[in-house]
């Protein structure tokens, strides 16, 4: 029992990260979060390997399944972007106002970026993920 206090500290320290980055799951392929912008969005979509997707838009919650073509397209775009080779962060030197912040996790690798600093190769990925959010899974 006396070891628990040390774990408290570890838990406290580790927890600092928890809410920022969410939790990982063995079946999860993609986690995408888009926040800010003129409308102050807070959109989060989690896509499982089997295409099951969970979309959260502030208080709204949707579940849907992405078709095979979309999943293939998504994975191809991640491959084209050489996502695993991207840095963890691409941020503008000075932020500005109403910019979107994007946090994308794919196969365990997370990239955080913002408008005006998004790597060119990542844009097609973001555009497809944005379409998935806007359509709420509807074709």
């Amino acid at each position: 029992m006396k070891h628990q206090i040390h774990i408290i500290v570890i838990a406290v320290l580790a927890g600092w990260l928890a809410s920022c980055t969410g939790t990982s799951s063995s079946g999860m392929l993609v986690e995408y979060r888009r926040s800010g912008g003129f409308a102050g969005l807070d959109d989060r979509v989690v896509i499982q390997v089997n295409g099951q997707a969970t979309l959260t838009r502030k208080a709204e919650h949707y579940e849907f399944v992405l078709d095979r073509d979309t999943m293939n397209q998504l994975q191809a775009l991640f491959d084209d972007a050489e996502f695993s080779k991207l840095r963890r962060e691409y941020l503008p030197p000075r932020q500005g106002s109403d910019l979107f912040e994007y946090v994308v996790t794919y196969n365990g690798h997370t990239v955080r970026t913002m408008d005006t600093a998004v790597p060119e190769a990542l844009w097609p990925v973001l555009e497809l993920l944005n379409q998935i959010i806007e359509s709420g899974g509807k074709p």
Partner: protein
Amino acid sequence: MKRRIVVLLTVVLVVLATFVSSSPGFSQPPTPPGVEKLRQDTGGEVDITWDQESGNPSFIRGHIPLLPSDLKEKADPAMAALTFLGRYIDVFELEDPKAELEAVGFVTDELGMTHVTLRQVYQGVEVYNAVMKVHLSADGKEVVAISSGFVPGIALPSVKPQVNAEQALTTAKMAMPEGELTTDPKIVVYAGATGGRSGALARLAWLVELWDDWPPVDNVYVVDATDRVILDVLDRLYEGRDRRTYTADHGTSLPGRLCRREGDPSSGDQDCDNAHDFAGATYDYYRNTHGRDSYDGRGATMISTVHYGRSYCNAFWTSDRGQTVYGDGFPVKDVVAHEWTHAVTQHSANLEYRWQSGALNESFSDIFGAMVDRDDWLMGEGLPPNCLGGREAIRDLSNPPRFGQPDHTSDWVSTCSDNEGVHTNSGIPNKAYYNIATAIGKDKAERIFYRTLVIYLQSTSSLKDARAAALRSTQDLYGSNSTEYNAVRDGFNAVGLDGVWQPPPNDCVCAARTTLLEKAYPDRLAALQVVTTLSRTRDQLLNTTSAGQHYRTLYYRHTGRITYLVLRDAELRAMGQRILHEVTPGLNQLLDGKGEQTLITHEVVTEVTIFLKRLAEADKGGPLAQAIEQEMKRVDLQGLAGMTFEEAWKRINNP
């Protein structure tokens, strides 16, 4: 050498002309003979503003009847205006209005009034920037005002240029070798710049406009069409309102391809034209209402880019590029004014874009967005339907809860997202402004809030500061015993900003990551390694056992308070960083299955103990302090010293 002498002579002449025209003897201009007729026609009810340079009227206000002969031309307002002016040629020293003025166009406003714009020409050649506007009443029976920039007394020997366009370009390029020609050189009659115009000094000239794309430089060279002398250089960038609008063509490179510059006609691209026109409307608002010359107060060029990205439902102001950017359909009036107000804020109070100051930053953008687009209290009502998601607008200053914003401090929203809720809690000051504006009128309210923003607020101002600053501004403008002062006080009080209220602690754990780890940590690379280790700890250790889950849950319960206390105490923050740094190697080895290789030292245990006690003290008996006290009673922290990470982890899972 000869050219230099000529330039010098021209300068001397212009200086002399300016001197003469501004000499004391000119302060009482002689009344043109036609003015008496004008007075008779209006029964003496006419107000005339005189142009000091020309001695002619520059603005006439009254009720000047149109005669049946004028009204015959009613179907064509421009012809009616020209016929009307024909009866008052002596007032403006016109000779033949239909030969000296040509119609540019007319607009009919929302009150039904028609405003005709006429351009001066001399023997068929345009006189640079010489415009008359005739303003007709809604019933079309009278002229209610005339704005005149007519230049009388032009007498040129010929309007045939002796210097051709190519030679004029060569001359201009000598002054700006790197400049690119924007449009073909244009022949005009140049009578001098504003403040020194004279028909007697008018010359036939080429206007040669050269520009550099980035950083933007735009000069118009006025080249004498008789002897290749540069008569004047007009700096378009700082000639009052100056806009450059680009299109990204659905890419993301900024600024993109130029689609419209200041003075250009409509481009035909609706987004380009809207961004351009509404940037102009925003410029005019700040200039006319608050006397501010562009967003920086110094005439900065307003650069916009439209058609940014694909499926991009957003608009933003980027400090890096110093420009606004719009996705398809986003350049609507209030959004454009909102974005440019971010630029105004950056160049005045420079409110930090997070937490309370960020909410104020957003609120001022909404407030002045609503003042530019004045007919309602909605923000973004004209956005494309696919970007509104079935809603009528994005925000409503008169009723913030309608679109999910709080309108009272009791509903303050704590969130990590969106720079800690800048677009959410802005609803509170938005509603305060609405309360005030509806009590004393928009004209007074906007004056008070502009003064608040540019005079009294600073980067980290809170909502409470904004209340105090607005009251100070009101006191400056209207006195402290005024109706206005009471309205401002009551407007803030009604949303819970009573001068005492403070928001709850910011329980945003992202602040810990961004501020503690990324900003305050001395070594950025080491900070990232710590982040990685903690993520792995969370996923591989804490999430996989019941004991780990227990402590993670405990953490979530108190995370806000921990973050709040740590971020506000430099010593606690430093201790936290030190502990993170010291335990990271051991945690990594534990995660890699080598936890038996690293010992937990006495120093670390001591530091952790002090850290937790300090944290509890800082919480002053709050729930976090109680939780720490309970755990400290249950375990002997010092007993951990000398154990390996592996031993500690096994122990926790098999107590």
